[in-house]
């Protein structure tokens, strides 16, 4: 079975798995990293949102063979560590605004929020309601209002 290597939450990892297995299952079923959630498997619900080299991506739609040894994959478990903190400012904001209800979509929401704020900040802008409208992550409990408030608050500390 082919061997694949990449950086996961700061550690170089190796995994034996077929080339076409999507990263979500490599993370969840092979490596036991369960923060990224399955919600659709077709890159629609965004529950699995994680980061590749600091940018948001959806591992349900990326075969492991597309990942290079020096690619850095960050899941919710490694988000705070990536900034050397106990919690990332976006996670802090999530707690402050008591966003989570069932919590299932929240890891993906937070990872998407961090990437969206970084994207906007790299364009030298502040986050707007139009930016927030572009976030595609589904929350079936309907926490969207608090998500919006938390992202705006989290962005101020990023």
């Amino acid at each position, binding site marked *: 079975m082919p061997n694949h290597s990449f950086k996961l939450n700061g550690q170089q990892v190796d995994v034996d798995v077929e080339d076409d297995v999507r990263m979500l299952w490599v993370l969840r079923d092979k490596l036991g990293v369960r923060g990224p959630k*399955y919600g659709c498997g*077709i890159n629609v619900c965004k529950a699995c949102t994680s980061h590749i080299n600091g*940018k948001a991506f959806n591992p349900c739609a990326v075969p492991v063979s597309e990942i290079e040894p020096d690619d850095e994959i960050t899941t919710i478990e490694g988000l705070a560590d990536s900034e050397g903190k106990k919690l990332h400012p976006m996670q802090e904001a999530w707690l402050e605004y008591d966003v989570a209800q*069932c919590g299932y979509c929240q890891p993906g929401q937070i990872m998407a929020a961090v990437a969206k704020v970084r994207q906007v900040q790299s364009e030298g802008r502040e986050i707007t309601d139009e930016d927030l409208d572009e976030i595609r992550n589904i929350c079936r409990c309907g926490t969207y209002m608090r998500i*919006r408030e938390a992202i705006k608050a989290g962005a101020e500390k990023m």
Partner: protein
Amino acid sequence: MPAHRRSSAPVAFGHRDMGRRRFLGYLFAAPTLAVGVKLGIDLAGGDTASAAIPAPPQPADLYDLSDALTDAARPTANLITVVVNEDGTVSFDLPRAEVGQGITTSIAMIIAEEMDVPLDKVKITLADARPELVFNQLTGGSNTIHAMYTPIRVAAAIAKGALLDAAAAILQENRERLTSREGLITGPAGTVLSYGELAKAAAATETRMVEAPPLKPASEFKIVGTPQNRLDAYDAVTGRKQFAMDLDVPGATPTMVARPPSIGGTVEGIRNEDEVRNMPGVVDIATIRTGVAVAAETFGQCIDAVRALDIEWGPGLVDGESDDTIIEKLRAAAIPLPPGLPGAKVIETDFTFAFRSGSPLETNGAVADVRDGKAEIWYGAKVPITAQAEIALLLGIPQTAVTLHVVQSGGSFGRHLFPDAALEAAEASQKMGRPVKLMWHRTDDARHGRTHPMTTVSIRTSYNDDAVLAYHQHHTSVETDTQHGLGEAISAQATKLPPGNYSVAQSLFLLTAKTSYNFGVTNQLLHEIPLQFPTSSVRNVYSPDVRLAQELVVDQLANAMGQDRYEFRRAYAKTDHLRKVLDKVAEMGDWGRSVPDGVGYGIAVHDEYKMIMACMAEVDARPETVNRPIRNGKTGPRVTKVWYAAIPGSVVVNPRGMEAQLMGGITDAVGLVFTAGLHIKDGIPLEGSWDDYFYTRQWNVPEEINIEILEPDPTLEVPGAGEAGVAAACGAIASAYAAAIGEIPKFFPILHDELGFEPKPLVPPIPESPTNGLDFTF
């Protein structure tokens, strides 16, 4: 003003004086202090007197769903137990399911308050299926806090009393001279003993019945009634919160099911089983009742194998049915409305509500280990006792051989009332002889998961220049499956309703459906037709349709009688509480202001779960808003602002949690009114995921949602919040849209006619996972 409007008197609600009640509990012989109480302890209902109103009270006015569930719990109650541990924590094994509604936090708050222990010292777990609890282990109807508030307080009060007794003995002081605070007991000389130190000393040597000390008066509450963040929030934001598919059950193999191209289709044969068995990662294949189960090393390889299976399918249960044929059947089955009153003017309106999905974000899934005549199951069951019995029956083993662990769920919305995934996991595990973690693909969840069925509503109301004289509302619906125990609990109680002997679903309907206005002769009924779609209740069950249809007819009446829609509701509202919440939202939303053409606002009320609520909403239906472009998303009219007010029953345990639940209900309403419906074609929904089932998304979210929870009414019972927000919001949003376009919409969701997507194939049953994910990074 007509006489009947002046005559509205305040409603005399059931009232109980908790202070004078004495409760009993048990001290258990146990290593550390353990206190048991009966659920449903001394919860004898108040005097549910009716209001002095001209419209005769309907069943739901007298005795609603919350009462029914609580009463059903009473005679069969058994013990629930609060335990004090040596590390100073207090444990409680909650016989309910946490599906996102926040009950673990609220229950912990109640215990912390009554015991004077810090909130973070209270540890709530979810109890396994406990058959001896009978009706007392059922999560539904927004009933948990309503039913458990007092029993849990009693247990906590007895526990604190036992700790004080133990401390008094150690310190050789009168108990009255000791104080408890923050998990510590302090004697008059300043000596401090922690609850942890006292846990063993306070334990009983033999089990005995004790009388609870008086419960803490509400005036001394420091935790209950204050906004608290959820206790599981840290786990949720760090990815540590575990759902069924996150559990590490040794050897549990990822498993998925290849499902038929129409609902209920059967497996006639597999043409290429050997070929699929040889695919990478595939571990086992077994035919189960609902399809062909495939176990593989990863779920990704399950998806590939399910897609590769070449299965001969037998016919389904409803193959001939599509939206149009079902509407025809419903119309043919509708019970005719009584004629309008002689000499009166009449308004008649028909509405249709499409099938809608209760699919939560976590798809159906369960872990099962069925070997050696025993079964161990992990599933987010809301009715675990029934689930346990069904699993035992399916496996052919005694119910006592089935251990069912209730796990936290990523939403429910009706789905977890039934053990669909647990049954499949158990069957697959038994047939494969190995533990499995069985998960539904999203497309399975969308197409084969339970839905709330299509409903037609006909309303006829008679009025003259002075008053509304009669109001009849008939719902005709495809049958909603209530065979999960909730039905039994309700049906057992429904014989108390005049005139008795309703079906389960009709009972549920009558316990929740209300006409909130004095419209003279009033009747509402539900008639169901038996089509074998997999159905269930959804959030707020019948009420969203009941309210939405009623409030649009109220708008028509107001317009026909030349009155302002808000003033009209005020005048006809059955209670002062309804007037108060109407006034509140009208003030919040500045009712009466002018808005541009194409923008409108509406208003509606709802009264359920011991919550009296009103909602005002504003909708922008101007073309530039309706047609705003979103890739693979439905836009349509936008709900721009929502104002919501509620008078809750006697105590709001966690105002922040209640606000969150109301917000969630409002978000549901946005989708239900405009976009979230299923199209049935040839016995199966066309929708197969979130890119075609248009649940509310960020681009549909209102700019503002303002919620005001008003002063609780101490004469009302303890409220429930999980489902409360949906109905009034549906009514207000539909009313706002009608005002914006100058026409009453008759079909919901409003944008149902525009399919707006290419349906995914039915064979293979699930779509391939894309490979181009890196093209969409940001």
